[in-house]
Each structure stands twice: as structure tokens, then as C-alpha cells.
């Protein structure tokens, strides 16, 4: 099953991320790719480089970033794993690297399940082998 992980920063130190952190993140990514679980991941520009399109009360509006009222999205990752707990564990490892190698950084990651074939499977005991 697939999980989309969206990483948000809640507190970013003034110091930039260290080369050690970047190397550790790359190594973890390689690990996850070799294990066959990481399908895709990319970092995201600050929302100041983006735009927000909104539909409210029948009106479409588009406003350029930054989106001041919400947390900044840092990156996304798409995992293919056996259970939610697997996705959570890979996310743990990612956040631990930030804890250990970028003091002061705080954030949160949403682990969201993507619809997959298992969600369209018919109920058990139907259409099965007699």
C-alpha cells in the first residue's frame, strides 16, 4: 500500500542544514530505494515561489505565496510499504536525522494513505474459488 508523506517545518533554526544532514538524508533515501519502498521524493520550494488557488462562495481566486497562515511544506515522499506502521517507521528515521543533525529544527510529517487496488477489492468470500 502507498503512503504519501508530507513534511512540514514548524520551527527552522537560522543556521542552514549541515552537509552531514544532507548526506544522511541521501543515504536514508538510498536505503529506502534499495529496499524497494521509496517510489518518489522531492523537496519543495518555499510557498513564496508558489500560488494558492481557491474556490469559495462560487468565486475562484489565485493568490501568490507565501501562505502566511499555514506551515511551510518542505518535501514529499511516496512510499510503497506493507503497513501504515512501516511508513511511520521510515518517517521516524527521517525526523531522527533532523533531531540529531539539525538542532533547533522542529516539524511534523503527515503520513497519508493513497488509494490502491486493496481499496477496490471486493469483500472476501465473493467471486472466489468454489
Amino acid at each position, binding site marked *: *500500500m502507498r503512503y504519501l508523506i508530507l513534511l512540514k517545518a514548524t520551527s527552522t533554526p537560522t543556521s542552514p542544514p549541515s552537509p552531514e544532514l544532507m548526506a544522511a538524508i541521501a543515504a536514508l533515501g538510498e536505503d529506502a*530505494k*534499495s*529496499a*524497494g*519502498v521509496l*517510489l*518518489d521524493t522531492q523537496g519543495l520550494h518555499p510557498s513564496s515561489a508558489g500560488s494558492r488557488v481557491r474556490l469559495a462562495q462560487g468565486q475562484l481566486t489565485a493568490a501568490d505565496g507565501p501562505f502566511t497562515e499555514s506551515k511551510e511544506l518542505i518535501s514529499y515522499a*511516496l512510499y*510503497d*510499504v*506493507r*503497513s*501504515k*506502521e*512501516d511508513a*511511520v*517507521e*521510515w518517517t*521516524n528515521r527521517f525526523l*531522527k536525522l533532523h533531531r540529531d543533525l539539525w538542532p533547533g529544527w522542529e516539524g511534523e510529517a503527515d503520513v497519508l494513505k493513497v488509494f*490502491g*487496488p*486493496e481499496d*477496490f*477489492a*471486493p*469483500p*472476501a468470500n*465473493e*467471486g*472466489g*474459488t*468454489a
Partner: protein
Amino acid sequence: MTATSAAVEAVWRIESGRLVAALARITEDFVAAEDLAQDALEIALKQWPRDGIPDHPASWLMATAKHVAADQYRRQVNLNRKLAIIARQQSTTGSAESDPMADVDENLDVAVQDDLLRLIFTACHPILSIDSQVALTLRTLGGLQTKEIARAFLTSEATIGQRISRAKRTLTGMGLRFELPPAEDLPARLNAVLGVVYLVFNEGYSATSGDHWTRPALCQDALRLGRMLAALQPEQPEAHGLLALMELQASRLAARTGTAGEPVLLADQDHRRWDQLLIRRGLASLHRAEELGGGPYTVQAAIAACHATAKSVEDTDWRRVAALYTVLAHIAPSPVVHLNRAVAVGMAEGPERGLQLADQLQDEPSLAGYPQLPAVRATFLQQLGHLEQARAEFERAAARTDNAGERRLYLEQAQSIGQV
């Protein structure tokens, strides 16, 4: 922070392969390594839900496994000492044994790739039965527990447990060293490994029985193993070929079963439900496999790619599909390949030619109970206007299948002819 056993199992799935591989390198014994790893897992399943998952679970598991090993070794030494008392009465020579676990390598990352390769070649050793190879591979490399493998294969935990212990006895009995196959055996041994992974995939892909939810899960287990193999053997064309084949076939998982669980044939599938991400991944792997020289899995993947990139059945490049089946019939001949070739040729050159090729397989003993042969003939007969014969062949196909959904499909096709 406490942890659920599901969270412990998740850590285990990530660490199992590397842990067993590293332990096997140290002990030079796959079976001992697997036992130690399982002991460490049992301890983790007891302690972590209470104390929380340690900060570095890989090191924790390794240290615990080594602790268990040292403990067992000491107990064995104690036993040996008791025996030694008797022995000493006859001989005065004896040497103090050192603990071989004292100076084991702490670094799990050293030569991990090679260890994992040795692990998979051992788990898929041709001396083991195929069932055992599958169970052992899913357990060590996939990090699945016996109960999960049993659930996936719709069998009992005891059955899987027996397959694993039988396999371990065999491996112990033959005194297999934990090493890579000699270079001259490598292609054949890799082929055996790919065969095990594809078998797991097909077990999930072809079955429509039982607990439906676990079936796509088995396909995905095989996909992850395939990705792992392609990463471990990046220079092997067929590792990429098999991966491409599985990614492309898996792209149709959601579309090939209807809302009531009935099988939906390729021609009737809603293409919008095909998984475009898996198709893109499959095409990329296929490209890599072809660059490296290909092989039977690569050719099958190329055929799957023709279907995945066609807008409809009519739009499919059937000449290319037929040509690829002709290649496959040369490098990996089988009656089923010949039958598939008949279908493709029929689509490319007309039903008469297709039927002619299918008819040549009528006396093939291995296809005697195969429902697809009459089903293929029925389709071509129907297109040629031989409706009575077509109906009889669809009914024959229905009688040959054990799968209720498939049987219903063939009977519907037979009935639809009656309504013409």
C-alpha cells in the same frame, strides 16, 4: 514511548534482511543466523511494546542477537566442560576456547550489499523445495513473519513453519557455506532467484480466491523484492526485466477485478484505472533491461509494455506483440507461450491464422486441462462465424477452470453466442 507490536513488526521488516545477512557473515552459517535473528525479534516483541522502540533499532537487534549467541555459546561450553571432565580422565590435553562472538564486527553497513546477495542466494538455493525457497525468502528478505506468510498463501502457520524448519534442516545437513555462487553458476542461480520472486508475484496476481485484501499485498511484496534485486544486481538485465514485468502487470491490479470480484479481461478493462506511476516505472526498468541485453523476462515485459501503452485493444501493436512472442517461443519455449503467440498472430493477421496456430496445440499434453486453449479457440471460431463450435469451446473452457469467477465469465460468453 510505548510501541504496538505492529510498529515492532514494521521495524523488523526493514531490518530483518540486513540483520540475518550480517549475522550469517559473522557465523558463516545461514541457519544459525536466522535462528539468532528470530530470537532477537522475540525479545524485541516482548520489550519494545513496554519500553518503546530503541533509538537505533538495527544496533539493538544486532547486539541482542550477539548476546543470545554468546549466551548459547557459554551454555554449550558449560556442557562441553561437563563432557570435558569425562574426557580429561582419558586425556590431559585441552585448550581454553575463546568466545567467537567477542570481536564481531559492529558495523552493519560493511559489505551489506554482498551479504544481502549471499542471503538471497542461500534462501533460493536449488537444493530446497520451491515452497521452502518462497517461505525462506519472504521471511528473511521480506521480513515477514510465519503468520503473515501463511495468511498471504491462504495456508496454516504450521504448514509454513514446517517448510521453514525443513529448509533449515536441509541447509544444515548439506553444510552449505554462506557465500556467493561461483561465477559460472551465477546466471542459473540468479534465474532461480528471479523465478521465486515471480512465483510470489503470480501467487498474488492470478488468485482471485480467499481474502482479497492479502492478494495485492503479495504482489507488492514481490515487487519490493524485485526492486531490491535490481538494486543489488544492477548489471543483470533480467533483474530489471523481471522488475519491469511485475511493475507493468501490477499497474493493472485495480482494473482486472470487477466490483463483485469477477475477473475483467484485458480487452474490457477501464484503462483509466491502470496505475500510470507503475507503468512509467515498468517502462524505465524495461529500457534498462533492454540496454543490458535482455532475456525471457525482458521480452515478456516488452509484451506487457505493448499492452500498457496501447489506448485500446484495437490500438495495440499486435504485430509487435506477435513478433515478441515469436522471440519468446525461441528463447523460452512453452505451450502457453505458443498459445499466447497464436492469440497475438490472430489479432495481427486475422482469426483464421490464429485458429490454425491454436489448433496445432490441441494434442499438447500439458494443455489438456488448460481452460485458455478452448477459450482462445472459441474466440477465433466466434469471429469466423462458427457459432455452435464457439459455444461448445467456451463451455469446455468453463468446465476446465476451478475458478468460479472465470467459469462464470466463460459461461456468459457461451450464452451471449446463443442470443445472437
